């Protein structure tokens, strides 16, 4: 049993110079066989393992990760959490996640630094205004908090925004979801890893999947760099590399993997206490607790697995940021990086069974997966444990690309995917 983190354990460990803390998770070698193997040790994969163990009483689980846990897109995103999606199916999915976020630090006994500082989406043209108003109404019908703001109200909520009517893309209004916000992304992976490990889940790092062994209609195990692991159920949560894993099982997916970039500035004193996103000029910004401005750019339009994006993408984003926030004109950028995101044709995720029995995919989150981490894990665990989707993820099946029943959030969500 691990030490519970509390003020008392902090004081107690201070006496031993913080050298005797328990390891948050073990570093085991794989066993020969597991009931479920999760491929991918990011937030979604670890959350899936956590909920499988916690809610479905499956304890013999392995999470195999090619690098280190949380080293992929979980540690590369801009940590924004919101649920103001247009369509009912998406609203249900993302608000389910948001409700779990609200109690997650307590549940995991791990401070994920969830901060409901609000997310504001800006409108820059007449169509934006109409779309955002429509989305606000749709959100409220689905029980999601949303308000439409006038230009003056935008300025009042975030005074550093340039609301002059004379800029290239003037701010004509915006929406605000107050329950939305940010969380510390690494802590989410670490918290779920610690929680899953405590319930007996084996988290196996530096273990790359090399092949999937299957017979005609079901899976038999996975071939990894640490040997063969026998299992009847495989949950693939491999983000940008989902297609690579699918190909190992002889499946094709409707995904394209593209680079998405983000960057942070040097740390400064608190200047922006919310998250502001803009669809039309594709710029979004928030400030981390360390004081860095966290800026998200867009995706490149070509397939790439190189975790590098094009320079002009960042340039375009920073142009927009500078026009909206002239106060940042002399900020220096500290770091820039890219991650590989798997994008579906309808910009909605896939949480689904496949034509192969025992093989499940959780992918296609595109540019916006972090916000869904707890909900995605919970629903994917349900899907794997019961071999049937939960009603909240039923719409996000693979079959929708054959039936045509898409969940078309492309351009309908609060920000371009």
């Amino acid at each position, binding site marked *: 049993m691990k030490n519970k983190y509390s003020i008392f354990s902090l004081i107690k460990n201070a006496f031993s110079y913080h050298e005797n803390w328990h390891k948050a998770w073990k570093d085991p070698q794989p066993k020969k066989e597991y009931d479920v193997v999760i491929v991918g040790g990011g937030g979604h994969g670890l959350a899936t393992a956590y909920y499988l163990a916690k809610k479905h009483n499956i304890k013999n689980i392995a999470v195999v990760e090619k690098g280190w846990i949380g080293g992929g897109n979980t540690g590369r995103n801009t940590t924004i959490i919101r649920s103001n999606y247009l369509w009912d199916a998406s609203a249900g999915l993302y608000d389910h996640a948001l409700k779990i976020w609200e109690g997650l630090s307590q549940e995991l006994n791990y401070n994920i630094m969830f901060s409901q500082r609000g997310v504001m989406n800006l409108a820059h043209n007449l169509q934006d205004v109409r779309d955002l108003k429509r989305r606000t109404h749709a959100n409220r019908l689905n029980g999601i908090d949303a308000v439409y703001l006038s230009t003056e109200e935008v300025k009042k909520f975030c005074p550093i925004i340039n609301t002059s009517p004379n800029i290239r893309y003037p701010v004509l209004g915006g929406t605000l979801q107050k329950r939305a916000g940010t969380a510390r992304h690494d802590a989410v992976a670490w918290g779920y890893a610690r929680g899953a490990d405590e319930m007996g889940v084996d988290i196996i790092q530096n273990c790359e999947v090399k092949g999937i062994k299957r017979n005609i209609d079901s899976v038999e195990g996975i071939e990894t760099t640490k040997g063969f692991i026998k299992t009847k159920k495989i949950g693939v949560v491999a983000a940008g590399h989902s*297609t690579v894993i699918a190909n190992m099982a002889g499946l094709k997916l409707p995904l394209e993997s593209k680079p998405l970039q983000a960057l942070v500035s040097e740390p400064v004193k608190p200047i922006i206490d919310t998250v502001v996103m803009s669809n039309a000029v594709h710029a979004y910004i928030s400030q981390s607790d360390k004081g860095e401005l966290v800026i998200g750019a867009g995706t490149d339009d070509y*397939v790439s697995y190189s975790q590098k994006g094009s320079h002009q993408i960042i340039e375009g984003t920073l142009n927009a940021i500078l026009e909206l926030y002239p106060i940042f004109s002399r900020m220096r950028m500290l770091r820039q990086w890219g991650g590989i995101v798997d994008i579906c044709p309808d910009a909605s995720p896939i949480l689904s069974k496949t034509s192969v029995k025992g093989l499940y995919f959780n992918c296609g989150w595109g540019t916006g997966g972090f916000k869904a981490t707890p909900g995605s894990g919970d629903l994917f665990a349900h899907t794997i444990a019961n071999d049937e989707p939960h009603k909240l993820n039923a719409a996000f099946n693979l079959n929708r690309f054959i039936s045509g029943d898409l969940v078309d959030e492309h351009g309908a969500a609060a920000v371009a995917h």
Partner: protein
Amino acid sequence: MFLINCPYCGERDQQEFKAGGEAHIERPKQPTELSDDEWAEYLFMRKNIKGIQFERWNHAHGCRKWFNMVRDTSNDEIKLIYKMGEKPPSD
């Protein structure tokens, strides 16, 4: 991948180009006879290869002509560029 050698204009900055996705996806000859599975395959399923991939590109801010590109998606290295209608290299 900063410069792309347009077969009509020569080397230009990547910024002038637009990626057009996977190449050599043929429009079905008999669309009315296609099953839902075949439609899904044509419309949505993509190879999304990690490694050598065949793509279409457009010199959007230049001659506006389309062409094909062979590119290694694991490191963004351009291997070959050839015109539309030309046969893809076999190796």
